[in-house]
């Protein structure tokens, strides 16, 4: 899909509308027909504000917060600190969760080995053998930081730019600001792993607000694909209705709706007809999207053995690629199971197994199709984990509590500088000491790559100009852009 098709649809819709309505209406009427009414006052958009480096985003959300100490933020010297108290000069009275409040803070070094990889020498954890092969494509950021210390507000913050529920999510903003690139699928799709290998303990809840539209028109909210049953709710015809019967009945509905439109004169009736037709098309376009039968064996192999399982992260990565090809603007994958308060070494290898090969495959697959350059991939959790242990503390058995002051993530494609490690923390992976990146900075940088000035994409709402990055000082991290 491309802009010329969209514009053609637009012209067709307008011509059709003007013909059937017999009205020479102004743009605003047609605008309300196409866009729908909404609680939010529609602003005059001038997006994109600058040339786009990326056309779409795949956001790999690691819900539960993976340990940066064990996976990205390499601190070889920590080994000598085993079971030693974290110096107060480092913790500086940092508030902790109710779980470890008042407990001793003893350092738990990571038991995993890191190696420099690729030409760039990005340090990669041994738990990521596949991803290590793409080290030169990754920009690893070790200086992410956030405010919230609990999952729920922290996840809401990463997904919507505010800890308080009810704001538009990242994908909703993009859908709102940039519009649609396809005619058969939503702009914003959410894929959730149905299972994960790192243990089902401490599973954190997800909320539909994480992909909600807040006060933006709800057509911009994420459509969550189901991992079982219909990928889109109520997609399939119920038993006893085949597509011929459905078509026949829609023809009658259409004819009668059309007659009503000619007497009532409300263009909303035309919209209903159009959306029923769109629904009918989705009944084939969505199964075509989710049916992997056409994928050759070498592609399936690329994503690894889990790709054959319904609801696996690997399968969702492959689906994400197929959505990229079909013009979905924002694809967000949720993978849970990272909340390793205890027995981290028992859970971490499985979690990494889940994502390692699929992430690497996604990069390779997009590259070979020429889609890597304008697809921005972001992978991050909602916060980091403490360098000090929680629960049992042995060399090979430990856990970690929540830690908002620093965490790690990576970006790739979409005009991001590969082979870079950005931002530094102190010796304890506790405080950011160089090049901090707030969640808002991350948002601003993502928007920037999509051609959007984060200060200019806003809507008036409840007496303020609502925007993804809020009102705090925020900057685009130009240093990580190619």
């Amino acid at each position: 899909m491309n802009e010329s098709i969209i514009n053609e649809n637009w012209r067709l819709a307008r011509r059709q509308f003007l013909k059937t309505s017999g009205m020479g209406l102004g743009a605003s009427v047609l605008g309300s027909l196409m866009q729908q009414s909404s609680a939010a006052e529609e602003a005059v958009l001038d997006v994109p504000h600058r040339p786009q480096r990326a056309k779409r985003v795949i956001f790999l959300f690691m819900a539960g917060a993976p340990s940066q100490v064990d996976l990205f933020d390499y601190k070889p010297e920590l080994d000598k600190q085993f079971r030693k108290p974290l110096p107060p000069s480092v913790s500086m009275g940092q508030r902790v969760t109710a779980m470890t409040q008042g407990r001793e803070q003893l350092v738990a070094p990571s038991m995993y080995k890191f190696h420099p990889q690729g030409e760039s020498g990005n340090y990669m954890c041994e738990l990521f053998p596949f991803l290590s092969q793409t080290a030169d494509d990754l920009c690893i950021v070790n200086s992410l930081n956030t405010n919230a210390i609990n999952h729920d507000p922290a996840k809401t913050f990463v997904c919507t730019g505010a800890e308080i529920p009810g704001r538009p999510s990242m994908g909703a903003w993009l859908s709102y600001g940039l519009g649609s690139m396809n005619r058969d699928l939503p702009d914003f799709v959410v894929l959730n792993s149905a299972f994960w290998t790192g243990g089902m303990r401490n599973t954190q809840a997800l909320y539909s607000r994480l992909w909600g539209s807040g006060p933006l028109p709800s057509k911009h909210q994420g459509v969550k694909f189901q991992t079982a049953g219909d990928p889109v709710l109520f997609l399939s015809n119920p038993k006893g209705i085949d597509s011929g019967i459905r078509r026949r009945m829609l023809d009658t509905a259409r004819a009668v709706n059309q007659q009503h439109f000619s007497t009532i004169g409300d263009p909303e009736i035309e919209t209903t007809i159009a959306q029923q037709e769109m629904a009918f098309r989705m009944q084939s376009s969505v199964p075509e999207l989710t049916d992997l039968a056409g994928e050759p064996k070498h592609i399936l192999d690329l994503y690894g053995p889990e790709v054959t399982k319904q609801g696996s992260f690997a399968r969702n990565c492959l689906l994400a690629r197929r959505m990229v090809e079909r013009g979905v603007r924002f694809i967000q994958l949720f993978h849970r199971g990272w909340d390793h308060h205890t027995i981290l070494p028992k859970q971490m290898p499985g979690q990494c197994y889940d994502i390692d090969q699929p992430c690497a495959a996604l990069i390779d697959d997009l590259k070979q199709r020429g889609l890597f350059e304008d697809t921005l991939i972001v992978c991050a959790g909602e916060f980091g984990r403490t360098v000090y242990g929680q629960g049992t503390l042995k060399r090979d058995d430990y856990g970690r509590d929540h830690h908002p002051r620093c965490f790690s993530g990576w970006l790739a494609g979409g005009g991001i500088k590969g082979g870079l490690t950005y931002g530094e923390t102190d010796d304890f992976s506790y405080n950011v000491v160089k090049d901090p990146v707030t969640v808002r900075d991350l948002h601003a940088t993502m928007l920037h790559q999509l051609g959007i000035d984060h200060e200019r994409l806003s809507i008036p709402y409840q007496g303020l100009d609502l925007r993804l990055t809020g009102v705090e000082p925020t900057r685009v991290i130009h240093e990580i852009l190619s």
Partner: protein
Amino acid sequence: MKSMNVLFFVSLPLVASAVYGEVRFDRDIRPILADRCFQCHGPADADREADLRLDQAEGTDGAYRESAGTIAIQPGSLEQSEVWTRITSRDPDLVMPPLQGSKPPLSASEIAMLKKWIEQGAPYEDFWAFVPPTAPKFPQDVQGTPIDRFVLRKLKAEGLDPSPRADKRTLIRRVTFDLTGLPPTREEIHAFIEDDSLEAYENVVDRLLQSPHFGEHLAKFWLDLVRFADTNGIHHDHYRDLSSYRDWVIRSFNANLPYDDFTRYQLAGDLYPEPTRDQLIASGFHRLHLIIDRGTALPEESFTRNVLDRVTSVGTAFLGITVQCVVCHDHKYDPMTMKDFYSLSAFFNNIDAAPETGGRNGSDFLRGLQTPYINLTDQRQEARLAELDAQVDGATVELERLKKSRQEVGEDEEKKAEMETLLKDGEKHLNEATQARNDYLITIPAAMVMKERSDQRPAHVLIRGAYDHPGEQVSRDTPKFLPPMKNVQGEKNRMDLANWFVDPEHPLTARVTVNRFWQQLFGVGIVKTSEDFGAQGEWPTHPDLLDYLAVRFVDSGWDVKGLMREIVLSDTYQQSSYATPKVFQQDPQNRLLARGSRFRMDSEMIRDQILSSSGLLNPELFGKSVKPPQPDGLWKAVGMPSSYPAVFVADEGDKILRRSIYTFWKRGMPPPQMTILNAPSREVCTTRRERTNTPLQALLLLNEPEYLRAARQLAFNVLAAPESSSPGQIDVIVETVTSHLPTPSERQNYLKLVTDLSALYLSAPELAEELCENETPPEGVTMPEWAAWTMLTSTIYNLDVTKTRQ
């Protein structure tokens, strides 16, 4: 792309003629200044540039002030007004708003408006919504009810004529949906058509106002406003039972509880000298906020979060002003300050309850309750409970006695063994008694309530809204930009606050309330931004009408049914919604009301209509929330295994056929039948739902299994009835669902559909069996025929007119 978006979002200004007539500060100027200037030159002290504020004329920072030889705004003189020089400057360093800022430059028409205003003397006026409403004079040059006169005067000014009265079928359908959320029955339609008397319509209205479904329907809007739900909304998203509050709302609307009491009960029901059960239940308003369950969060933070959520809901529900942003900074557009907000919060920070829900043990958790709460027992239940309590007490005493005697037994092994057995029995007995009491308790409805602590917690301004950064201490007070409280002796409490809200002099409460009822009946309020009556809200389309309704509402003793009655009896309300191209072009959004309004119904109304028209609806009132079926796995996909409940289990029998107001609302994953059609998640207060029209909605209405089952049921009912001809049967179905009869050509379409589908199903009988789930068709009807008629009915359920109130 760019040009397309611009096209999409251009909207016709409602009042395009102001440039040529009188400029009003509130309507025409303030919105421009608020949007482009107030960020740096507004009410917020901290961000003010050049010691200049443009939100007021007077004062050392005001717009008329002279500073270093320049005057920001010199009334009547463009040349001497620095503002004019700056907004028209071509110098990039001087032009306002600054080029490098996030605000778009002023448009030519905005500059023209400001020019006209300065030339006219740059008059400022107090912000309309903060000045108490007074009864306006009725327009004398037009006829009709007061409502109609205000509307007609405006139409006349815009050169539009009102539309004729809607036909009787449309009218009874409209008013029945608007007052009960349900469609009229065929019998009700026929009776209305046959009633030629002048009072026919009025009688219908009065009948509907007496229907118990009136309260259910009005409660739906209120529950959005106060974010009512059945789970705690954060972290585990556990069950939290507030159904008795919901039932109280329904009963209050049905009993026409005056709105001032409706307000008092909720804000301060617990503070009556001897509160009734209803007053206590209503105070559960303060328990509707999201609340985290005990575990990982810091209680102090949770406490603050709850208080702020409470104040925000009061701001949205009663004040009609957004206060959320004042949590962190002074308002940039409205005169609300942080101190105002935290002074208001001081009324709500003193609940005698834990800041987090907690503890999985005991019956409270299973009942979805957290103290303080009251058990809503009747006499019989009280007696039974007392009996069970006595048994627990008895078992406890007995066990204590046994423990004591064991110590006295001495060393005799035999006696010791005997004692151990007795002790074990005693423990078992106590456990059984406790279990029996808890099992019984679970069956008793309860209500979480508000309860004040005996001593008063101090309240502080929280710097940047952070719970751990208290600033200046504040005492309970109302916002300074609104009239002060009257006649308060000693420490102010929530009852004083409630009385202040419903004081006839309060500029906002009545306006905000009548506007929401208007919005309910017309699809859009007189003030479109019903959530925000502040400077960034929209100017009312009919300011006089709004004030008339507000004053009348207060004078009537806050009579909600009276207000609804007056509105639906107006000619304005009863107009046909058909739009000629001319009318549509002139006012596509129908803000001027030259025609009846037409909008898609809310999700609850659509579902309830399907249940009701198919005869499946279980009209039972009140009770615990119920779970109609939904697609598998939705809760599992987002929930935690340790959530209570973690797995969705649909109810059975006629519980799944209750009205949607009783549907269980999990905030983390509300029922898709509701959210797909724009129902909010109930995490935040919502004054108006948006209305989209999406393919996902089309899929829902086409394929939802329960909706299809209802179509099959209606087809069955009609095929089983004595009416024999196919056209007659078609008429019955169409009339049942849409309240109208089909036109001859529509009837032809339907007949052809039934014929075609009958043939299709006859050639594929297995499909017919699947569709009808192998149930027995009506006598004399074949399975393929039943299937074809089911699909016909489903077709009619999927028409635009079916889901639309017009």
